[in-house]
């Protein structure tokens, strides 16, 4: 269980989250919905340590994560696919992927995962030797997700995977997210496209100006007048 309690967090003294509570049980797909600037990305960034937490606690299975660094979070099994994707643009697709498995060292399991992910993302196989920056937006998003999965994280945090992509590509990516969640990976999905997010999620939170204003099962959220009005 990944839990955030009364988290106040932000960047360089500017507070974005004003006492946020959120829980992601193991095995679930949880989505965090909200408008631009509500604090969705900051929530994910605070979990891995890219945003500073000034108050409250972030815990994984009861052990604090608060104000660590992304590499420490990954060692605890939490991988973030950032909104900016943060790929290594000058390096090949293959190198980007292999670097995703850096912490696991060299083993047969890593090599198998490499092949398996290329089966999941066949477009990446076609582009293995190409520098990552030459990929299209959709392909870069796929590479970012695949790179994060190379670490075999228990928790995958996805920040706006649909952002700026064509509808056909978005469908493809959400198919993959569905498949990943079926493979024992817990997912915390941040999305502006609430309709899509609620299709894959079990549970959802709505965030407004740094606070959770509504939470419930995916069905409850879909049925809620407030959510429908603002986000669907």
């Amino acid at each position, binding site marked *: 269980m990944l839990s955030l309690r009364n988290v106040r967090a932000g960047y360089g003294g500017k507070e974005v989250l004003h006492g946020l509570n959120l829980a992601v049980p193991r095995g679930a797909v949880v989505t965090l919905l909200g408008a631009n600037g509500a604090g969705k990305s900051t929530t994910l960034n605070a979990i891995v340590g890219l945003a500073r937490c000034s108050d409250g606690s972030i815990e994984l299975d009861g052990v604090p994560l608060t104000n660590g660094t*992304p*590499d420490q979070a*990954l060692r605890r099994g939490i991988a973030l696919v950032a909104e900016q994707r*943060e790929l*290594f643009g000058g*390096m090949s697709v293959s190198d980007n992927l292999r*670097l995703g498995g*850096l912490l696991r060292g060299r083993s047969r399991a890593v090599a198998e995962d490499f092949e398996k992910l290329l089966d999941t993302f066949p477009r990446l196989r076609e582009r293995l030797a190409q520098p990552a920056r030459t990929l299209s937006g959709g392909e870069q998003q796929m590479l970012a997700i695949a790179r*994060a999965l190379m670490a075999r994280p228990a928790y995958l945090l996805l920040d706006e995977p649909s952002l700026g992509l064509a509808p056909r590509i978005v469908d493809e990516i959400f198919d993959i997210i569905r498949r990943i969640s079926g493979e024992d990976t817990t997912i915390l999905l941040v999305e502006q496209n609430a309709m899509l997010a609620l299709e894959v999620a079990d549970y959802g939170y709505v965030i407004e100006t740094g606070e959770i204003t509504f939470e419930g099962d995916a069905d409850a959220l879909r049925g809620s007048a407030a959510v429908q009005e603002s986000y669907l």
Partner: protein
Amino acid sequence: MLAQLLVSSLTAGAVYALIALGFVLLHNGTGVVHFGYGDQVTFGAYLVLIAQNFVGVPFSAAIMMALLASMALGAAIYAVFMVPLRNASLLARLIATLAIGTALREWLRAFMGPNAWPFPFLLSPAPVEVGGLMLVPANLAIIGVVLVILAGLYLFFEKTLQGKAILAACENRTGASLIGVRVSRVFLVIWVVASLLATVAGILVAPLLTLSPDMGLIAIKGFTAAVLGGFSSLPGAVVGGLLLGVLEALTGAYISTALKDMISYAILIAVILVRPQGLFGGLALKKV
């Protein structure tokens, strides 16, 4: 004549390449141009002298001690100056590198004197004729050492995941951190490796020049080589170094020996005016 010239120019070029590599590594990793790097080159050579004359160990052991001490120096520069200054402005960090260089240079002037010291060659400096070319074993040793270092660095950066992780951290810190790289450790490694390269360059170049506190001026040539190579490309730095060595030798032989040392400044100005991204740095402009 030309063949002889090219062979001879490789010696200087190899040393420039090593210094250029140090500049580029530090710049890629930390965003700083280390203006005290030349003084670290000088300091490295002096470390050998200090170990020989004051600790009293033989030359080979003195070299080992100098290499170890320079690694410690690199770690210390990182821990004492670069960590506290990591959020300071670029200008502040540049001034810090300048101050480190000045401190090393003036310490040497104060404790080792302003005069030149003789420095032993690695192999005999007497030329040997091989197939019509005059080869100097001492110079071949320099080229050999540089080749071994370049091969080692190439294998590390291109063939190991750990090496690629360092390049990845140079390209995108956040991205590297997200895949599990401890970025602060990468910077430490870069400072240690760059300091080691400076000392190797110092040991190689000291017998060719004279070892005085101002020998670090040679670094302007490594800097030129790095600029020639685009200042962001490691292979570019190596090619830039070798090219500068050849251009210097050609200028010295066919135009005037007096111009030999000027040519690197001319190239520096020309590259900055005409092709600031260097020969290989197509991306550098976009990144800024």
